[in-house]
């Protein structure tokens, strides 16, 4: 609810880029974007260097993938909200809409009515996608961290014969003493353990090798 309100309230501050050949549709779209009050710029052909921050890009989508639009999108550090401008609903155009991963579509011929809805819906889809990505990244690192901590605790418990609670407190104390995160300390413990283990294993296998060499 709060996010939806936000989308409408922030419409006027958005930087909108129109990547479409200069024709009646581009003209109609530009006029409506100006009425809505977005900061709007039309560029064709697409720029070859990264432009200043773009929040929404309207891009022409045709029956064959556009190299220049693909190249331009490759330049942007953060992917803008993409709205496809499509004149056909043929399978090849539809496939390009899918491949470009547009957040919304505005059909051509462009009419003033519908531009605002397409922006709002595309923005919601884009925000949701971005929020989901952030959430997934956060959850992923949480799971990894908790795996590391468990492994480190196991090492300490085995090595020192202590219980889980004490192992955890030991890691946390180290983290505070070294001004590191619990995960970083856990990582160090796991790595040290692996190193010790490998040294012992390697030296054993070295001995084996020397013996076999001797016997040869």
């Amino acid at each position, binding site marked *: 609810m709060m996010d939806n309100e936000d989308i*409408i*309230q922030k*419409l*006027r501050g958005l930087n909108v880029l129109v990547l479409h050949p200069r024709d009646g549709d581009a003209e109609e779209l530009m*006029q*409506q974007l*100006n*009425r*809505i*009050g977005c900061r709007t710029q039309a560029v064709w052909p697409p720029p070859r260097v990264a432009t200043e921050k773009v929040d929404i890009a309207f891009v022409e989508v045709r029956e064959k993938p556009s190299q220049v639009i693909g190249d331009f999108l490759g330049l942007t550090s953060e992917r803008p909200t993409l709205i496809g401008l499509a004149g056909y609903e043929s399978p090849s155009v539809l496939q390009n809409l899918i491949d470009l991963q547009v957040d919304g579509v505005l059909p051509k011929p462009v009419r*003033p*009515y519908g531009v*605002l809805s397409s922006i709002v819906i595309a923005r919601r889809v884009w925000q949701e996608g971005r929020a989901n990505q952030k959430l997934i990244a956060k959850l992923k690192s949480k799971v990894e961290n908790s795996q590391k901590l468990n492994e480190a605790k196991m090492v300490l418990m085995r090595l020192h014969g202590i219980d889980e609670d004490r192992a955890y407190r030991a890691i946390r104390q180290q983290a505070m003493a070294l001004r590191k995160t619990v995960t970083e300390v856990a990582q160090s413990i796991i790595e040290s353990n692996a190193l010790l283990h490998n040294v012992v294993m390697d030296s054993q296998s070295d001995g084996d090798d020397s013996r076999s060499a001797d016997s040869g």
Partner: protein
Amino acid sequence: MAKPTVDRPWTVGVLFSQTGVTAIIEQSQLNGALLAIDEINEAGGIEGRPIEPVILDPRSDPQRYRELAEELLAGEDINVLFGCYMSSSRKEVLPVVERQNAFLFYPTLYEGFEYSPNVIYGGAAPNQNSLPLASYLMENYGGRFYFVGSDYIYPRESNRVMRNIVRQGGGEVVAEEYVDLQAGPKDFQWILEDIERRAPDVIFSTVVGTGTVNFYRAYHESGGDGRVRPIASLTTNEAEVAAMGAAAAAGHITAAPYFRRLDTEANASFLRRYHARFGETDTVTSCCEAAYFQVHLFANALRLTGTTSADPLRRVLRGAEFEAPQGRVKIDPDNNHTYLQSRIARVDEEGEYVVEREATRPIKPDPYLAVPALNDWANVPIRKE
């Protein structure tokens, strides 16, 4: 659309309800349009041909507006319509007008967020009336607002805009209630009790049509006093005040581009002609004035184009100006809405609107203003009475 022959009149369609809930205000708009048509014809018409209105009554029923618009535009002669009051009726007519590439002149304030190349919007957008009204009310009465509206799109959108402004100004909306469009006096009883309980500083009403008269009267009868706790509105007008009576109307506030008692030469002669034509001036309202100047804007455009086809008309209408009774108005070429005066008036003991505050020059329409800031209006100089 069709090539007119020299001996035939210019026929235009007129769709204002003469019956139903919005009949009072739409009759007022009809009068404004007819007065302008008379003036143009008395002055010799356009290229020697008079303008002839075909007037149909949609009976305050949105569906009927669509049917009648289709009927009017089906013939060869008519390509221009004047009409609609409620947004719901405009929304019905819009696709018909666009499909035929015809023209609709819409002389009514509304909630904004629309642009059609086939419509000229002659009434105020929220930045021209809601904003100044909100700041006036907060300065003079306080920040606790009670919203009452008829249940359709205009009141809900209008309240959304108002709520944003009130919150920005540090005020609060203590309640937001809706009644049926057909609401009678009894339907407001529980709202009046609720108002008494919550004791707001001001009531913002988006009740339209006959509901307005019923609401103000019921408020008055329940002991409500506009001089102490006013009902503020963007739609309540002279014709409705005449219908409810001066006692019920005293103290209440309306924001509009035009009020009947404006002291200008253009208005004085407008009222003289209106009185000569209709025998009274009780029904002169801001929407009536908008219908009046829109017909004149159309006629001036027609003089230049010599055709009622939409494309040439649009070209000359954009940027067109007219010395209206409210002052100079101009069609904004960016969005087909109109630069309008902005005024706030209070009803006095005799039932007459007295202007309390006005902008010193016309305000540019901004129909897509989603989040109006209180100070958006502040850059226009204000004259306080």
